[in-house]
C-alpha cells in the first residue's frame, strides 16, 4: 500500500468517508467539513500508521490533502 493510500485509509477509518470525497488540492476543513478534534484523531491515526513522533496538534485542518502528504513525508514517513 502506498503512503497516500495508507493516509486515505486513516481518513476513511476516522471519518467514515469514501476515498473519492477527498479533494487533494482543497482545504480539508472545507471539502471534508473537518473539525479541529477530528484532525487530532486523524493525527493520532497517522502517528500509529507511520510511527511518527509528532504532537497531536501538529497538522492543521486548513491544509490540503496534498500538503498533508508532504508534511507527513517531511516527518520521516516512507512509502
Amino acid at each position, binding site marked *: 500500500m502506498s503512503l497516500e493510500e495508507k493516509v486515505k485509509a486513516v481518513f476513511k477509518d476516522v*471519518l*467514515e*468517508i469514501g476515498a473519492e470525497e477527498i479533494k487533494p488540492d482543497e482545504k480539508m476543513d472545507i471539502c471534508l467539513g473537518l473539525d479541529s*478534534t*477530528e484532525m*487530532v*484523531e486523524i493525527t*493520532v491515526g497517522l*502517528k*500509529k500508521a507511520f510511527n511518527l513522533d509528532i504532537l*497531536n496538534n501538529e497538522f492543521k485542518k486548513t491544509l490540503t490533502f496534498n500538503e498533508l502528504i508532504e508534511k507527513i513525508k517531511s516527518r520521516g514517513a516512507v512509502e
Partner: protein
Amino acid sequence: MKKISITGLGIVSPSGIDKRKFWANIKAGRSAVKKIERFDASKYQSRIAGQVHELDAYSNVSSRLLKKIDLFSHMALVASEISIKDAGIDMAKENLKRAGIFAGNAIGGWLYAETELRDMYLEGREGVSPFMASAWFPAAPQGQISIHYQIKGYSKTIVSDRASSLMAIAYGAKNLNDGKNDFILAGGMEAPVSPYGLLCCNTSGVLTLRNDEPETAYRPFDKTRDGMAVAEGAGILILETEERAKKRGAKIYANIIGYGTTTDGVDRIEPAADGIELGRAIQMALKDAQLEPSQIDYVCADGAGTQIGDLSETRGIKLGLGGHAKKIPVSAPKSIFGNMLGASGVLDVATTILAMEHNLVPPTINLNNPDLECDLDYCASGVQEKEIKRALVINRGRGGINCALIIEKS
C-alpha cells in the same frame, strides 16, 4: 413578566418519543420503569430505570457525529429537531444571532466519559478519543445544538441537579422577557443509565431498592416509598414572546407567566423538612405571575419519592398555596417513566401542557398506601377530568434547590 409562549414540543422519553405515544402512556398510567439491561447492573443496590427505546428511528444524526457525542447530546438533538418541526419554524429564515439555547442537566455525559477513562487506564493516554474533552461536559448538548442549527444568540447551560431544566426554561423565559432573544430552544437532557452514572445516583441514597417490582417501585407520596427510579431522556420546548408567536400564526400550547427560585441551605442531599423555602419559591412565582393561589388549578409536583422529599414538598405546597392546596389536584406523573434528574422539569412542563390540551389531570401511579402527613389530592386513582387553566410546576434539586414555574393555557 410578559407572557412567553411555548410553541414547540420535543419529547424523548422512556414513555415514548412521539408526543401522542407519550401522552397515551401517561394517560393510561403505564409504567416504563424496567430492569436495566444496557450493562450488567446486578451488583448495584438500585438496578431499575426508565430507558429510552427507538431513538435511532427518530434520529437524523450521522454516524460520523455519533462518534463524537454522548447519548445525552444525541437525545437533545433529536428532541430539538422534533420541537422545531412542531413549532413550524424554518431555521433558514430566522435571524440565528437572535436565537438561543437554554439547556439543563445534572450529571453530564458519563456513558462516553467512562468508556474513554477505562481506555485511558487500559491503553494509556493515546487510547482516549480526542472527542472525550468535548463530549462529556454539561454544556456539550448546548454546543451540539448550536453547531447543528448555527444558533449564535445568547445561550446558557444550567446545572442545578434535578431542577436544572425547569430553571433553564425559567431563565430562557426571562431572557425573552428582557428582549435578548427572538426565540429559544429550552429544556434539558440526562443520561444516567451508565455504570458510573448509576453508581453516583446510587450513592446519593435517593433511589428505590424495589428491584423485583420495577413498575411499582417508584411511588411518590405513598407511605411505603423508598426513593425514585432514575430515568434517561430529553425534552426541548420552543419559547418565544406571545407577540411573535401570534404574529407568525403559531400554535401556542401555553404561556409561561411567572417563576420563583430559592435554596434551602441545610444539607448536601436532603431538602429542609419544613418546606419553607419551597413555599417561598411558590409565592415568588405567584407574585411574578400576578396571581392569587386560588387561580392555580393543578400542581405538577417534584415527587422525589423519598420519605423526607415528599413530606417537605407537601409542606411547601401548603405554605405556598395556603388552604387552596387541598382543593386542587397535585400529581407526580414522572412516577410513570422515572425521574429524569436534570431533564425532569421539561418533561413535567410537557406533561402539564398536554394535560391542559386534553383537560385531563395525569395520575401519580403506585400510590396505594396513603401517608397521613402527605395529605393532598395526588390523583392516585388515575387520570381525572378537569379543565386546567393555570398550573404550577415544581422541581427540586439535591440539597434543597427549589424552582416553581407557572404556565397558563393559551
